[in-house]
């Protein structure tokens, strides 16, 4: 799998430590590292509370001269954006690589944001592998580049690479770097007086980064002698879709493939000189196309997502690329069957969230108007029939803040629903706000003792430590209840909720029962 190729590449680069928070499609990189670490006793591999804490731990490893990897999904980088952007300014010491997996098509995400924009924003190097072999090789190169230019380096994957399998050929492993603490604390202390100098240094190194991209074999320009009309730019996995359709084109157009950013300007110009129009094929948002197009008219026609030649939303496919290349549609032998009922994902049979939602729906049945703000996890599936129990899902931890806002605005009753791992990830801080205001809302922490959606990983804090944490934040013990979530308990849970909805202040109800997938995983691990 592409994810595993990154993990193996990092291990072979002499990795000391890796940090992550689970998130599709990035999870398997870390699952591989955990397994490897268990078998070999190294590297350090820790699931973290969230992507920000993960990134900061990796920075610590870098500061003492060793190599570290941070793994997250695209939206995780929003959470880690603060350390990420600032880490571009410090003088990275031990190689620091951020492997981030985007999810175009939103297979398992709330948006399809493109992480390459973050790399561009931070002014660092970004590698975008086109296949599993490149994922392995680029990971190794990324560490070297990180140390050479003293910057973090991004490795950008997309779902179709992260979750597809192929053969990867590995080569000679490197040894772990010795402990070697950064000599100059000023280059790690972003006081304005230091940061100004460090920022200037990052700006000065930019031409070198462009030169790196110009010379990289991953950015390959092939000029065609006979076709001077069309030029193609591909990035990442779009190359595969182009090559898939290439045999059917009348002639081979000039082609620039970009696998390393910043954009290799000279190569783009050399391509543009050969062509009347350029078609840009990239997975994600139109990053390259936008830069080519600019704001002012040019004689060169630039086609891509912005021009409408390739769909702006959703995943790139061989068929979408085929159409953009002007090839005729393939004849359809079996027409798509339209009248089949959809089969959306749903909560597992026997899932504890089912009992929690049955109780919540019953307790709220007495009110004409109410609001339930929920969060990200398996329990988001409670939005669909038969439960239709929740009314919002925006980002990790948003349930609690949004509920407080709704209560502040005057609505009653207000319920926030969040899973135990999402609570630990981003729910503790908004709960502090709610405690400080003794907000008139009821928080349900659905404690299934696992990170269910991504494959039932263990949470950073065990279930038994959840209640003390909540009480420690200052929640009134009289309005904090732990109730077992099982079918026979639905009535009891509904009664507790009813009572707390009527309490005009902050209440916390924690329905608890282990995720059934987690039970399976635990048994499997115990056997192994």
């Amino acid at each position, binding site marked *: *799998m592409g994810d595993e190729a990154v993990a193996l590449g990092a291990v072979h680069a002499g990795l000391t430590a890796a940090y992550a928070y689970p998130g*599709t*499609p990035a*999870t*398997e990189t870390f699952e591989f590292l955990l397994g490897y670490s268990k078998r070999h006793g190294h590297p350090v591999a820790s699931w973290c509370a969230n992507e920000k804490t993960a990134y900061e731990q990796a920075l610590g490893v870098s500061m003492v001269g060793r190599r570290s990897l941070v793994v997250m999904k695209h939206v995780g980088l929003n959470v880690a954006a603060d350390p990420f952007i600032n880490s571009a300014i410090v003088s990275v010491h031990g190689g620091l690589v951020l492997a981030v997996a985007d999810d175009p098509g939103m*297979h*398992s995400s709330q948006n399809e944001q493109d992480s390459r924009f973050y790399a561009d924003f931070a002014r660092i190097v970004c590698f975008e592998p086109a296949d599993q072999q490149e994922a392995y090789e680029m990971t190794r190169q990324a560490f070297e580049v990180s140390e050479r230019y003293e910057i973090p380096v991004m490795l950008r994957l997309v779902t*179709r690479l992260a*979750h*597809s*399998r*192929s*053969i990867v050929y590995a080569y000679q492993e490197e040894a772990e770097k010795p402990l070697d603490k950064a000599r100059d604390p000023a280059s790690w202390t972003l006081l304005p007086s230091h940061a100004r100098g460090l920022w200037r240094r990052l700006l000065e190194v930019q031409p070198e980064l462009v030169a790196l991209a110009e010379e990289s074999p991953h950015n390959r320009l092939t000029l065609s002698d006979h076709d001077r009309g069309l030029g193609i730019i591909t990035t990442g*996995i779009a*190359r*595969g*879709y182009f*090559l*898939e359709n290439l045999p059917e084109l009348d002639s081979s157009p000039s082609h620039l493939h970009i696998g390393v950013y910043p954009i290799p300007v000279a190569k783009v110009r050399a391509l543009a000189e050969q062509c009347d129009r350029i078609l840009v094929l990239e997975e994600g948002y139109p990053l390259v196309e936008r830069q080519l197009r600019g704001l002012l008219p040019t004689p060169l026609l630039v086609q891509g997502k912005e021009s409408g030649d390739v769909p702006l939303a959703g995943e790139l*496919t*061989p*068929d979408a690329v*085929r159409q953009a290349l002007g090839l005729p549609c*393939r*004849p*359809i*032998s*079996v*027409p*798509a*069957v339209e009248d*089949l*009922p*959809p*089969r*959306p*994902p*749903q*909560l*597992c049979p026997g899932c504890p969230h089912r009992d929690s939602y049955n109780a919540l729906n019953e307790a709220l049945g007495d009110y004409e108007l109410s609001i339930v703000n929920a969060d990200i996890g*398996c329990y*988001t*599936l409670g939005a669909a029939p038969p439960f239709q129990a929740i009314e919002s899902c925006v980002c990790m931890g948003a349930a609690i803040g949004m509920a407080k806002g709704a209560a502040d605005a005057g609505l009653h009753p207000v319920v926030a629903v969040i899973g135990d791992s999402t609570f630990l990830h981003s729910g503790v801080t908004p709960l502090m706000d709610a405690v400080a205001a003794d907000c008139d809302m009821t928080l349900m922490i659905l404690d299934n003792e696992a990170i269910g*959606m*991504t*494959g039932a990983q263990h949470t950073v804090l065990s279930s038994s430590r959840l209640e003390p944490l909540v009480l420690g934040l200052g929640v009134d013990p009289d309005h904090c209840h732990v109730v077992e979530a099982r079918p026979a308990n639905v009535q009891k849970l509904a009664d507790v909720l009813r009572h707390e909805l009527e309490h005009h202040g902050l209440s916390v109800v924690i329905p608890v029962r282990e995720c059934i997938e987690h039970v399976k995983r635990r048994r499997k691990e115990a056997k192994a």
Partner: protein
Amino acid sequence: MKYDVVLAGVGGQGVLSVGLVLATCARADGFEVKMSEVHGMAQRGGSVNATLRISDAPIHGCLIPQGTADLVLATEPLEALRYASELAPTGTLITSTEPHRNIPDYPPIEDLLRRILALPRAITVEARRLASQAGSTKAVNLVMAGAASSLVPIRPSTFETQIRRVFGTKGDRIVEINLAAFELGREAAQCVAA
């Protein structure tokens, strides 16, 4: 030579395991292999599909262009029909006949099977029953792999070697059950195809 397979089923049924059996064997026979998978939210009891591409030349991407699949291999009849349009004009559909009813509006099974059998090349297999006959309903994936085995460009002996290798650590009984399941799937598909 290239051979493209669309795998379809319901999340949790083991669609990926069927693909992995075929991918492992194709690799053992020296082919290039690419397989795409679905993880995360999409896995939770919903409709899932994966792709497996086998070729003697380098494979560019893991996705299969629409209407070009050589085989649609489904572990569930409703999902088989959902992905039937992926088939190339010469493609074959193989599906298990046993429905997985986890939605309220599941269509009548006779209706689904009639529409499946009206396709130019369709093979139906009672995968669960055959797995149970082989000794374990858990071996249903091997029945499906067996059903596909005479169509995919993999040597029959490779399957046996790989099944022995993969399940070897779990004991002789498990190996025998899986070999039997594979064989029953293979026979069932050949029977229908003949």
